[in-house]
């Protein structure tokens, strides 16, 4: 098969549905990456640079009795050793988290999870820094840890956060959505109620590049330059100003190329602060790069929800209501990165894609002796958990009603004419054509044929499963009246400058970690202003050279910053129109835009190109009255609503009856993210998210023993899919533009990570139907599937 045929087979591209402007343009960032010339944090080498390493707690819960650093200080290559006590003197021992909690930069009183930061060493090279860690002697008074989330609120549970005034238990927060009484009433009269305990285990984004920073403090100017692996450089700069008390204009945060983020690089980690302190105390640039174990055991984990879900329906399959009670494990500090008013993220969209009469969710979040985090791993602020819950419940209902899972979903979808649709938990879905996407997926999969094949195989004793999932996401945080992080509104700035020769530079506040912003944002601007994308440079990742904004996570770049880019280009175009009217000596109303030029209406011979206009804007000639020279604009975009991408996923698995090994044979993903900017990049992101789904559903989990030792601290223990564990992805799409986004686009980066785990688990459970299994928890490793086949599917925690 030729590559062209191969591509056709997989893409299922509808060529009549044209994407935006330059479509499948190759990426502008790739020429440097394929030459090995990307510049990642660890590639930054500054003159005189020192290396920092962090000493971490070997135990989950202990009081620090004493720390002896003398031997480490005596090491000939060591320049500084810093403990929590030293930081406390500077007022830097604790820092605020993104959830209005505090987190220790270096432990002063107690350690609260294995891997917590206790001290750091700055030395001449990375090996010496690690050697010196061995020379620090810490005496711990070990305390009983809280590891089992279900026991965190027991009366005799040790109190983890005794640093908080008056804290006498491990309660973190309560949260609720929907109408409890109305939901109870609907459940009361429903024909069928299905209840299931569903766990979404703790997982980790584990980007291939770990977290790190290079801090360079200029003592004379009082200026800090920080290279760091940050998905949100502007938000980080403001937080450093608040934490360290440095004036904000003296801080420059540079996010160079980032080797994957997936939410792992949203929080501020103690290591970044240590690097800054290290540079201040040594008066030298200081590099800190964590190793893989440090990344897995101490930085932002994801999920860790223990959910009881219930779904109520009529006998013929009309879903009436859903409700859930969630126990959320937030680890030792509430480090969740979510809008302040949304401590449970956007879990409220757990009503899914269905038209319901009532819904209610209740959550209790607790502290445990585990690493902090919670919102990460492409979860779109907890929508992974919400979609997994509802899509598992719908399948459980289908099981009990003995109904086809597709038929059940089709019967309950929110219908196109119901949009904008307000859910029972208060979310306003902007647009959707759910049945169309589902039909498309069925067609691509050959659903009926698959069911026939399944029946035949079952008759032969083979275990083939077909899993279906449908998701709606809420992405693009967010309207500033509702959404802020530590008081910073979630709007994004964008600046566009057209140079005299008609080349342009667009400056963004969001930060690519592989999403290809240098390409897609050039395409957005090109489409609006008619300058070819090759002539538009995209600048990001440097707070000194970009406007303020909250960064890239939660699939927000296209919904928020993409809108800003389109609007700033329109603003420039409006000015260009006025200048053109002067050049052509006609009124503005007599001009029409011909993608790249203004033309006098009805007179194609009289027109000026955007490049000519740019030269005039900067030239010596007269400009229309009241028009300043130059051709540039800046805006700050405040979205009026989130965007609601959706998708229909179908997964085919084979389970080996002898070994219980699950093989994902096919995966068909139909996504609708509204207007498509670069389909090649969209498909790439979908492929990546589907692979995450295979990881979470079948392989990945951060687990602990009863003493709180993390058992998943390396890539030997925390298994991530390789090329052998995933199939060749089959993708399709529909296009339902967002009505409120300037170009109709919706976010897509996390769609597949959200939608694929339920499709895969539904497929495995479907394969196990002959064993009478209605639910089994992730990760569906051979041993866990084997247990399910023996009749005891155990929760993973």
């Amino acid at each position, binding site marked *: 098969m030729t590559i062209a045929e191969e591509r056709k087979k997989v893409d299922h591209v509808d060529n009549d549905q044209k994407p935006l402007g330059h479509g499948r343009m190759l990426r502008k960032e790739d020429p440097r990456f*394929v030459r*090995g010339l990307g510049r990642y944090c660890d590639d930054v080498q500054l003159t005189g640079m020192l290396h920092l390493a962090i000493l971490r707690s070997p135990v989950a819960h202990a009081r620090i009795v004493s720390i002896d650093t003398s031997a480490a200080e005596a090491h000939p290559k060591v320049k500084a050793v810093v403990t929590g006590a030293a930081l406390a003197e500077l007022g830097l021992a604790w820092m605020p988290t993104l959830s209005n909690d505090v987190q220790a930069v270096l432990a002063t009183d107690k350690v609260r999870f294995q891997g917590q930061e206790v001290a750091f060493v700055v030395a001449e090279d*990375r*090996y010496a820094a690690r050697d010196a860690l061995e020379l620090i002697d810490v005496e711990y008074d070990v305390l009983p840890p809280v590891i089992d989330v279900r026991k965190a609120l027991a009366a005799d549970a040790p109190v983890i956060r005794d640093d908080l005034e008056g804290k006498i238990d491990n309660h973190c927060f309560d949260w609720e959505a929907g109408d409890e009484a109305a939901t109870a009433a609907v459940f009361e009269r429903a024909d069928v109620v299905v209840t299931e305990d569903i766990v979404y285990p703790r997982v980790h984004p584990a980007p291939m590049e770990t977290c790190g920073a290079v801090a360079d403090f200029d003592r004379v100017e009082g200026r800090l330059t920080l290279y760091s692996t940050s998905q949100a450089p502007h938000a980080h700069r403001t937080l450093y100003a608040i934490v360290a008390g440095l004036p904000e204009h003296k801080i420059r945060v540079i996010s160079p190329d980032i080797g994957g983020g*997936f939410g792992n690089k949203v929080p501020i980690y103690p290591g970044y602060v240590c690097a800054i302190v290290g540079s201040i105390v040594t008066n030298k640039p200081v590099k800190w790069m964590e190793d893989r174990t440090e990344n897995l055991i101490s930085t932002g984990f994801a999920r860790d929800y223990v959910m009881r879900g219930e779904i109520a329906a009529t006998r013929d399959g009309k879903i009436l209501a859903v409700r859930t009670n969630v126990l959320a494990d937030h680890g030792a500090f509430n480090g969740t990165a979510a809008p302040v008013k949304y401590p449970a993220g956007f879990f409220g969209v757990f009503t899914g894609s269905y038209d319901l009469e009532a819904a209610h969710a209740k959550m209790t979040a607790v502290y445990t002796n585990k690493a902090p985090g919670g919102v990460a791993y492409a979860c779109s602020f907890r929508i992974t958990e919400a979609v997994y819950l509802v899509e598992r419940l719908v399948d459980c209902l289908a099981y009990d009603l003995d109904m086809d899972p597709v038929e059940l979903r089709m019967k309950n979808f929110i219908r196109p004419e119901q949009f904008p649709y307000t859910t029972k938990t208060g979310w306003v879905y902007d647009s959707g054509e759910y049945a169309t996407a589902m039909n498309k997926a069925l067609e691509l999969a050959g659903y009926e044929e698959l069911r026939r094949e399944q029946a035949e195989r079952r008759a032969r004793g083979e275990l083939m499963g077909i899993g279906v999932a449908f998701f709606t996401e809420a992405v693009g945080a967010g309207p500033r009246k509702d959404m802020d992080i530590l008081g910073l509104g979630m709007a994004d700035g964008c600046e566009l400058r057209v140079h005299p020769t008609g080349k342009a*530079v667009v400056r963004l506040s969001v930060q690519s970690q592989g999403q290809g912003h240098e390409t897609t944002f050039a395409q957005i601007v090109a489409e609006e202003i008619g300058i070819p994308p090759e002539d538009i440079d995209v600048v990001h990742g440097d707070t000194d050279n970009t406007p303020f904004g909250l960064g890239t996570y939660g699939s927000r770049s296209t919904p928020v910053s993409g809108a800003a880019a389109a609007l700033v280009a329109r603003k420039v175009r409006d000015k260009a129109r006025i200048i053109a009217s002067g050049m052509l000596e006609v009124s503005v109303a007599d001009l029409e835009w011909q993608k790249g030029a203004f033309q006098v209406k009805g007179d194609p011979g009289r027109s000026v190109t955007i490049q000519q206009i740019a030269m005039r804007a900067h030239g010596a000639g007269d400009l229309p009255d009241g028009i300043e020279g130059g051709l540039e604009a800046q805006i700050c975009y405040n979205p009026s609503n989130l965007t609601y991408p959706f998708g229909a996923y179908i997964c085919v698995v084979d389970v080996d009856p002898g070994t219980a090994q699950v093989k994902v044979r096919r995966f068909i993903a139909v996504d609708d993210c509204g207007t498509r900017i670069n389909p090649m990049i969209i*498909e*790439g992101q979908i492929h990546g998210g589907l*692979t995450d789904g295979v990881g979470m559903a079948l392989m990945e989990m951060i687990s602990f023993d009863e003493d709180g030792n993390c058992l998943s601290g390396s890539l030997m223990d925390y298994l991530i899919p390789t090329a052998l564990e995933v199939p060749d992805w089959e993708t399709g799409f529909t296009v339902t533009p967002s009505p409120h986004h300037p170009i109709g686009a919706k976010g897509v980066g996390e769609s597949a990570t959200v939608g694929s785990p339920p499709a895969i688990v539904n497929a495995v459970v479907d394969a196990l139907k002959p064993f009478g299994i209605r639910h089994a928890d992730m990760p569906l490793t051979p041993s866990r599937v084997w247990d399910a086949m023996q009749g005891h599917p155990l929760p993973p925690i």
Partner: protein
Amino acid sequence: MQVSMTVNGEPVTRDIEARMLLVHFLRDELGLTGTHWGCDTSNCGTCVAWLDNEPVKTCTVLAAMAGGHEVRTVEGLEQDGRLDPVQEGFMQCHGLQCGFCTPGMMMTARALLDRDPDPSEETIREALSGQICRCTGYSNIVRSVQWAAAHGTTAEPEEPTIEPAGSAS
């Protein structure tokens, strides 16, 4: 100790600690930062480069062990200003996103194609299975290698599709 080797055709000599890993030697001593580091356990493959024409995980080789041998890194793929078809294939088929795994993937792919100019999809997946990509989901990496296979083992002067993004003005 003193160690000498050939890296991308150039002889190099450095004084190093005996325990220095080849990955750190390439990155910190030679400034060849295209070879990455991503794990402590030899699982990720972001560090893959060639030792005497064999792809190795350079985090698992001491620099001293490479003494007297030939090392080729991602920086050595481009020859006389011409990209290797593997590099071109990764650009054409969107075989990379963040680019962190990419040098290692390309070095393994090049070695595979030198042995087997027309590998099956299964063979390609097998060859890359000691390496992890967290972004692409592998389908496009497989296609990139197939593209390179279809476009010959020696670099043809492909029209550069897109110029590198220049610096901001």
